[in-house]
């Protein structure tokens, strides 16, 4: 369902040129659980942002579910992000003024779901990440692991076909990190497609498939 063909992304700052992605090709099928590893600055986040339709490639082809992404306008990309992609960030990126519940509800509001459908889905998702008893808490009133679980619930709320996580355990201690990873395993077992970027070899080792990024290129890891 994800196909990248010779994708490049070049950042120019003054005269300097950074080839963040340099002919990256990759194929990920529905239902896979993939870990992406690689040294810092190798282009992992850049790849993830393109896959997640937050950014566009400078050249090459990116197809999501058989549709070429570069053809879409910004609002169409917003629609794709809303319906097909669930993003999980290293720093959680919850809206601090809103409660856990309201954060999880947000993508559903942009889907224009009815109030009843939203309520039901939010309850379901908070139940899934075992935070039903914290639904009225603001992010500052939650631990790091709890915040990340709220973020996961938010990413899952829209029932996306693709879950993307950029170092989801990077800001968590190892025990909490393990909890998050076991949550990913459960979600994978339920049929979700998951792509996780990680620095942590032990986290990567848990994934059935591992990909290494080096200097903007993709290598499979045996």
């Amino acid at each position, binding site marked *: 369902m994800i196909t990248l063909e010779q994708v490049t992304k070049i950042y120019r700052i003054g005269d300097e040129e950074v080839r963040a992605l340099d002919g990256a090709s990759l194929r990920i099928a529905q239902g896979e659980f993939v870990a992406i590893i690689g040294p810092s600055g190798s282009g992992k986040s850049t790849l993830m*942002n393109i896959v*997640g339709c*937050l*950014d566009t490639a400078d050249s090459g082809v990116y197809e999501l579910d058989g549709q070429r992404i570069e053809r879409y306008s*910004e*609002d169409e990309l*917003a*629609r794709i*992000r*809303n*319906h097909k992609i669930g*993003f999980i*960030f290293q720093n959680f*990126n*919850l*809206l601090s*003024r*809103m409660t856990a519940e309201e954060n999880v509800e*947000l*993508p559903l*509001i*942009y*889907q*224009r779901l009815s109030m009843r459908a939203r309520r039901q889905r939010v309850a379901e998702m908070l139940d899934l990440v075992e935070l039903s008893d914290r639904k009225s808490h603001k992010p500052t009133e939650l631990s790091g692991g709890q915040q990340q679980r709220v973020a996961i619930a*938010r*990413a899952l709320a*829209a029932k996306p076909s693709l879950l993307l996580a950029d170092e989801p355990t990077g800001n968590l201690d190892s025990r909490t990190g393990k909890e998050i990873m076991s949550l990913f395993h459960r979600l994978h077992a339920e049929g979700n497609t998951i792509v996780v970027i990680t620095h942590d070899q032990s986290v990567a080792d848990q994934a059935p498939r591992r990909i290494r990024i080096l200097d903007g290129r993709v290598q499979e890891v045996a």
Partner: protein
Amino acid sequence: MLWQCIKMAMKAIAANRMRAFLTMLGIIVGVLALVVLVSLVTSAGDAVTEQVEGLGTDQIRITITDDGGRPLRLDELSSFTAHADIGEVAPINQISTTARFGDESGQATVTGTTPSYADISNLELISGRFLRTSDVTNNTHVAVIAESAAEELFGTPNVVGAEILLEGRPFLIVGVLADQETFISLFMPGYTVYIPYTTAVRMSDTLSSAVTTMLVSASGTDMYAAEVAIDEMLLNRFRRDEDAFDLFNQALVGEVMSEITNLLAILMGGVAVISLVVGGIGIMNIMMVSVTERTKEIGVRKAIGASRRSIMLQFLIEALTICLIGCLIGVAASWIVLQVATALFGHLMSFHLSPGVVILSIVFSIFIGLIFGLSPANQAARKKPIEALRYEG
């Protein structure tokens, strides 16, 4: 979506109450100025117009200033009345003298006139009758006095048949009039007494039998036609000497007054609108800051699927909400101010919130919210999701 945006706006405002209030202050003061100033001017204007209309706007006052050796005689007036556009014509002359009954006495303004005067000035009889034509032709010593004069001199309004002394001469009271503020009584204090025109001329050393002042009414409601008609006839009478007489149409006073108040209301309103615009600029300023501060939030919203339109709508509605809340507070404050003004100056005139200006201020506030919210909202909507997400305030 709209409802969600309103909820989000309320939340954003509630999260930063002090700043929101300070932002609103510009709008609050602007609306307060607009509503209070315009309401004050229109209230005052209404009061003045009412007063002017009470003086009788349905009469034309003519003063002959220079008859060129051809004085206007009483019997000539009937020729004016013959014109189709003219209703009635009444000459007046006035003496200020002492009125006496028994031990009671006081200053009186004695007006000599003809029966037509009662109709032209809409006099209202309480008892008895007004002057008659026979009174004028026979220069009888009869008087019609105002109720207040009767009360003060006689202690009762029932004075028909009693005698009153004017300049020491006895006059038979034939009628009592309801008190009325006429244009003349406004400038002539004292008891109001009417006697036949000819009698007044005989009584005074200074008055001549020539008519120097008269009141003219229209046959219908068209004061303008009456004015044109009497002007033309008087011009003919005085050999087209435009300086022979002055013509004063009281209907004009009312018109001029309301024109002045309208102008004042527009002027004051204009100044207030400028302060509203300044308030709008304040809102734009704060919204710009807010958009920058919330870049990360915008990035997150976009990452989870917010379209440009929904971001735009969110910030636009936030600006609109600030404006509208400010407007409502301003209107409420105006109401309080006018209420206080009425409590203090209610005996002079009543101040009321004019609904038109309230609607106007709401419309203006929405307009200002839209105009000054648009550019910050657009700025927010245009942010690239990836860059917004990376932003660290």
